[in-house]
């Protein structure tokens, strides 16, 4: 469910990969909110890009183990930490 929610919100962010880190800037309709930005590390960038409306949690964790030198338990922990962080960003009013 949360992955679908994040996927829906992705279009409300401008992004740019800068030397392996992903900068996320949310769209805003008021000048007062303009300084809010988020930076994701390489793993966060990978997870963000694989939240595509189709991949589920297990699929993304499998992709992490295939693309990073970490085991499944570590990948799951990292994935859950990412979701916790990004959920706060997405759900922010």
């Amino acid at each position, binding site marked *: 469910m949360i992955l679908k929610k994040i996927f829906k919100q992705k279009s409300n962010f401008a992004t*740019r990969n800068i030397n392996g880190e992903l900068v996320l800037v949310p769209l805003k309709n*008021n000048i007062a909110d303009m300084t809010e930005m988020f*930076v994701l590390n390489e793993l966060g960038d990978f997870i963000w890009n694989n939240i595509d409306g189709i991949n589920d949690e297990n699929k993304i964790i499998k992709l992490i183990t295939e693309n990073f030198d970490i085991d499944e338990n570590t990948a799951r922990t990292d994935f859950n930490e990412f979701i916790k962080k990004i959920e706060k960003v997405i759900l922010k009013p």
Partner: protein
Amino acid sequence: MNTKILSIAGFRIKIKSDLLFNLDEGHIPFIVKEDSNEDILVELYDKDIINKIPENKIFESANDKLKIFAIFKIEDGYKIIIYNQQDNNKIQQVAYVDEDFYNWKVIISEELINDALKYPLGPLLLYYLTIKNEAIMIHGSAVSDGEKGKLFTGVSGSGKTTIASIYRGSGYKIINDDRLIIKKDGNNYYIYNTPMYYADDPKKTLLTSVNLIYHSKENISERLKGAIAVTNIMANCIQHSYNKRYIQHHLDFLSELCNKIPVYKVGFKPDKSIVEFLNNDKR
């Protein structure tokens, strides 16, 4: 037909009208005679300002006390309503702007006949010029030794005006200590001043370092790179973040700038020692 042409940061703004209009003292030094192709065309009208506010508001600039301006999407472009800052219930200007932000049809009230681009319309025009080009607008101060230019930027109260004043006392030229345009030209980046509420000549310097400043008990400098450099500069840029393309423009522009121009986080003591410190700092 009365016409005036402004040259600001190398951009041409043509203003024409049947009205015998004028501009405030801040814009007058930027008036040029040559009539080359304009980047923005402003047409001034004096029809009655209709106070009807459209429904489709996409962006607003306001603080706790005052509405500054609001942007509405209309069928063939945008309607921008600019509020009078002395009497906030009054509308000062209404601009009908095309999708490309090239043609601005601006209705002004009679009292603006000698100040047609009254704040914040002037900076608004410039903002939309920068997002169409390789340029950004930023809150900051910039100084030049005649060859190299330093940009100092930071949050409100970080010392932008203070550090400009220190450099002025050390013989440097001050480009401006409030609002600047950074523009890419070939492989270089240049800093330009923009019209303020007071008269000042157009100025320009080569950008050779970006310094994110804060007050400190001692002078200290740390190099920033990558995402942290880009986001720290971007936080001080003038942005209308309702459109993803505009944000993307800033991200792309600043990413490229940070690859070329060194960025530092600089804590400074508010005295002349910072000038020597930054000159001797092996950066």
